[in-house]
């Protein structure tokens, strides 16, 4: 797998059928980016930004209205069900809630064997078990045989999330989509899991699509980042650069408002008016304009394009030139 391109113009989300009116929620609009093999790409944004929708569409879990998702040379969105199923083994997902995402009635062994059985990978029970134990070792649930016998209620939140990761690994995927995998875990466990993901990436040359609203997490684990707002990309590029030197007004405001665990650092906050509107009330022109301190007439009427502003850096603002030092 070399490059993954994702592109969805105007996506159908919810259709309102009251009074025969058809409404479309543009959950994700014309989003394009590439993820390099073995890298961690963060899809970052606040609630309603479209980051989760984008990731699910990448996996074919939701239907995109249009666009192309290139994975290993194939356009995923145009594959048949059968072809997609085969490809799915190489793309796995880890969800946010370790309490909801694993079946409480199945033992860990059963949970981890299920994907192997469903996809008819590993012919014998012994082979399946071996793969399960290997996955448990990979996520440091040792001894693996002991953990395989347990049920979810016998595990802590962090351990459950390790099981969820093991389940994703058991099919030996190339791409892992992680949707806020540590947001529901305690602070002392978060770094454990983040470090585990980084270790796994190194060991298996995995590619990650990491979704989060937490920019500190994104910085810790990511190589590149895409900042989304109301379904569109506002800015993208290497995570360290974006965090230390944001260009787009939205990114700048976001970063300035992220608190840091250090009382001696005093930061200037950029005040932003209001809150993110609903996607049903999509602002005209630039989606951020009603809240942007620099909005001008053109921002109200014309949607800015995502333009290249540096090597590997992109920003969607009519006044990009003003912000680049």
């Amino acid at each position, binding site marked *: 797998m070399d490059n993954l391109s994702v592109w969805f113009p105007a996506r159908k989300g919810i259709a309102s059928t009251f009074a025969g009116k058809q409404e479309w929620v543009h959950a994700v609009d014309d989003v394009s980016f590439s993820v390099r093999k073995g890298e961690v790409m963060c899809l970052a944004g*606040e*609630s309603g930004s479209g980051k989760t929708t984008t990731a699910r569409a990448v996996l074919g879990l939701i239907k995109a209205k249009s666009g192309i998702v290139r994975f290993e040379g194939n356009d995923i969105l145009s594959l048949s069900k059968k072809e997609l199923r085969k490809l799915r083994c190489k793309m796995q997902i880890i969800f946010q809630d370790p309490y909801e995402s694993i079946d409480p009635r199945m033992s860990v062994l059963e949970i981890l064997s299920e994907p192997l059985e469903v996809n008819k990978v590993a012919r014998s029970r012994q082979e399946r078990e071996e793969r399960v134990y290997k996955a448990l070792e990979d996520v440091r649930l040792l001894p693996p045989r002991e953990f395989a016998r347990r049920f979810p*209620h016998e595990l*802590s*939140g*962090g*351990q459950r999330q390790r099981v969820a990761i093991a389940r994703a690994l058991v099919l030996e995927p190339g791409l892992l989509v992680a949707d806020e995998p540590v947001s529901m875990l*305690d*602070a*002392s*466990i*978060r*770094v*454990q899991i*983040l*470090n585990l993901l*980084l270790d796994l990436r190194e060991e298996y040359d995995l590619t990650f699509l990491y979704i989060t*609203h*937490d*920019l*500190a*997490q994104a*910085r*810790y684990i990511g190589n590149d980042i895409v900042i989304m707002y109301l379904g569109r990309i506002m800015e993208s590029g290497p995570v*360290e650069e974006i*965090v230390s030197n944001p260009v787009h007004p939205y990114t700048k*405001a*976001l*970063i300035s*408002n*992220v*608190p*840091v*665990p*250090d*009382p*001696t*650092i005093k930061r200037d*906050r950029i*005040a*932003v008016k209001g*809150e*993110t509107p609903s996607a049903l009330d999509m602002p005209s022109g630039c989606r951020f304009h009603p809240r942007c301190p620099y909005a001008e007439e053109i921002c109200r009427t014309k949607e800015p394009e995502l333009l290249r502003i540096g090597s590997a850096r992109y920003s969607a603002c009519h006044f990009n030139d003003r912000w680049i030092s």
Partner: protein
Amino acid sequence: MQEGTARAVDDVTFTLKRGETLGLAGESGCGKTTTALSIMKLLPPGGRILKGEIIHDGEDLAKKTDSEMKAVRWKKISIIFQGAMNALNPVLRVGDQVTEAIIEKENATKSEALQRARSLFELVGLDSSRVSYYPHEFSGGMRQRVMIAMALACNPSIVIADEPVTALDVVVQSKILELIKDLQRKLNLSVILITHDLSVIAETCDRVAIMYAGKIAELGNVTDIYKDSWHPYTEALITAFPSIAGEKKRFKSIPGDPPDLTSPPSGCRFHTRCPWQDDTCRNQVPEYRNVSPDHHVACHYSEKIRGKFRGAKP
């Protein structure tokens, strides 16, 4: 399902100063919310205060009956519960929900209460006309402002805020935290801010108590706690907290999981996850001692191991 008694809060001591913001920080199950609910005498069924004192205005709240507490709750000490902003009654106008407490506690008439509600709304940055709106017409941040207005309705001197910004977007979070700080100054409030988020504590608190497994591991002013902590748990937690500032590097994580409070570890409750644990730690509960002015820590070896976690390789 596990049966047993969980010692949710064990021998916790602290003082809240007038006009200060005290943080109660810690992970899930550390006892921070239970401590707050105990102060309000609002423990869930099955919970009870076994022993101890809660001195406010010269009286011991722990000894008060429920009907005696009615004169304290909301009027002297109020609380913004975790997730309260999502628990507003959807079929009542927000103004009515705010006036409810005023009418009951202050014996006010409906119109007096409504007037007070309007001025409270202005105080928290909401247009006073919004008293006639329904909860679903407010955004998340605005609903939290309503909860703050409610908490201030009867002029308390202490406000407890339990995870006041956890569910909010970062930009809104900043505004709410600023509002709380602003109100604190204006009204000379004392605030107890409960959260697991160490970056929120750093931004808003004067002093902080780091709790672990029902006990306070360390309590001191916020700069000392973050920059020069005495307890290995505090140090480990702070150094392993992802941040957008500072050096980008791999952090060393604390091994293991937070303990089960129905059968906590013997001796020091943190010993099972502490790199320096020894026999003393396994067998003796460390004393909660005063190590410098206004700084308490519960660890047998603070002096020897301070700063060592930071230097350790990941």
